[in-house]
């Protein structure tokens, strides 16, 4: 059996009297799309934050490619190759699409101007941003230097997804990527997720949209009350059973029976 690329064991995270993660386990296999589903408040977001370095879990271990890791910030997780698209998107509304795409990874001009004076290579950055957005079929955006706040919700989502996918990474985590999107835009994001997998990068997809989850996921991680309830194969379970599991209307034992 192949080793999980990203593995978490016994994660605990408490916020005062609230236990958001209660000994949660997590496994992501190489090259798969793993959907994480769960009721509101089940701890999906806390799990993702722990894996992507946005919070530091109180207990537990995270292993990436067989090495134990611990991240103090999203930046460290990103440097290790874990990209996350947050539900809030983490975009700066007043800044341009290009600025947002490169946030923290800007390209400098070659030669003295770039090396000594830190001058940005605006042209190369715009070119790159335009190319990445075209790949996602998002070029209804006319002006790459448009401020993000002037884009529609779907376009903003596209920019955030493009940012995560643009820089070769080991794991991409998408938190509710289609929640704010229309049918066509959702389709594009789903196609993109499959593109990313085709390139060999595993994807973690957090979603409430069962048709989307059942369509693209290879495995489904069902989260309940702060821990992993079970992992199921979307081909051998119905959507209503999955919903029953995640809301507690059914237990995994009942499913097996």
């Amino acid at each position, binding site marked *: 059996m192949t080793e999980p690329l990203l593995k978490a064991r016994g994660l605990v995270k408490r916020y005062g009297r609230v236990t958001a993660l209660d000994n949660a386990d997590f496994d992501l296999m190489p090259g798969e799309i793993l959907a994480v589903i769960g009721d509101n408040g089940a701890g999906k977001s806390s799990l993702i934050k722990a894996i992507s370095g946005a919070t530091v879990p109180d207990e537990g271990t995270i292993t990436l490619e067989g090495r134990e890791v611990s991240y103090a910030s999203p930046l460290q997780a990103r440097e290790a190759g874990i990209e996350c698209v947050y539900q809030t998107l983490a975009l*700066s509304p007043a800044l341009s699409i290009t600025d947002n795409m490169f946030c923290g990874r800007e390209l400098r001009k070659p030669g003295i101007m770039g090396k000594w004076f830190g001058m940005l290579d605006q042209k190369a950055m715009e070119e790159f941003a335009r190319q990445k957005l075209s790949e996602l079929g998002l070029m209804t955006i006319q002006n790459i230097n448009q401020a993000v706040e002037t884009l529609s919700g779907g376009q903003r989502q596209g920019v955030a997804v493009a940012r995560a996918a643009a820089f070769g990474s080991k794991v991409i985590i998408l938190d509710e990527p289609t929640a704010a999107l229309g049918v066509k835009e959702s389709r594009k994001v789903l196609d993109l997720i499959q593109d990313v997998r085709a390139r060999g990068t595993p994807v973690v997809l957090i979603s409430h949209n069962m048709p989307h989850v*059942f369509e693209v996921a290879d495995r489904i991680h069902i989260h309940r009350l702060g821990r992993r309830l079970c992992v199921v194969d979307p081909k051998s379970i119905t959507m209503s059973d999955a919903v029953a599991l995640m809301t507690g209307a059914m237990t995994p034992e009942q499913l097996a029976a």
Partner: protein
Amino acid sequence: MSDSPTPGGQDYEARLKDSTAAVAEFEHAPRGMLGTIQHVLHANPTFVPVIVLVASIAVFGVIAGERFFSPFNLSLIMQQVSIIGILAAAQTLIILTAGIDLSVAAIMVLISVISGKLSVELGVPAPVALVIGFACGIGAGYLNGWLVTRVKLPPFIATLGTWNVFFALNLYLSGAQSIRGSDIDEMAPLLKFFGQSIAIGSARLTYGTVLMIVIFIALWYVLNKTAWGRHVYMIGDDKEAAELAGIRTDRTLRQVYMLAGFICALAAWASIGRVGSISPQSFYEGNLESITAVVIGGISLFGGRGSIMGALFGALIVGVFQSGLRLAGVDVLWQVFAIGWLIIIAVAIDQWIRKVSA
């Protein structure tokens, strides 16, 4: 429990292939002149101060005539605003991060007292005294940044505290005594370097004025053409988003405060040349005057919006109003009155511009 999982998606999407490919088009309601202006200003926030500056120069040129429009008077305005202008540059950096720095002028006066005390009274060579001054300026900025990022104080409170602390230190070190200009000339003329000037016709361009312009150009470059500068804007726009997007926000914030402290130390050096002596009581309102220049310059107090050049224009607008009203024979109190309304109108315009729709 009979709906079978259907790979390939649910059927409702099958109809997508027939959907129209055309981008939706609507008849645009005419935006109107006001709407167009709002859009232009949203894209170019520095337009407002530039228009106000040009208009006020034109108006005072008509009212006060020759005396206002002379190269001598215009260069005098530049000299008069140079110190507040440099402080406004430091202030802009802080305000772009959605902070505010009430201590800039206090840092400046403290540094001028430290450098003066060391070189004039303790016989430290002037270059060494200046270097110590710069180190103290950066240190003072670091203290502010540390209070904001580590102790998590709101910038307003942190710098309100350090304003008083620095002012008290400055009174203690100076014994509330000024250092006379003649003593500076004798012991450390280098301290007055920025008071020298180049005469161009009847205009007199002081080195202090040149320094102010150089600082603004350098900061414009840093803020717009380097990654660090873009990060400063991102932090001011939405700190949490910047953090999640992978920017070390607290480290960058501390650097911003340290750079502001360094610029305050430059202002200290320039102020000795401008005033001619070192007075611990001078520039007591410099903190607020620098904020005034920034706000009139169209830089948003909510952070992340506005151009550093706006602060330069803001400082010049204040200078032009003061000079113009004085030459027109208007009482000082009406100068203050006019500046007050300028601030209110500038922030009101900023609020209006931020409401722009796509």
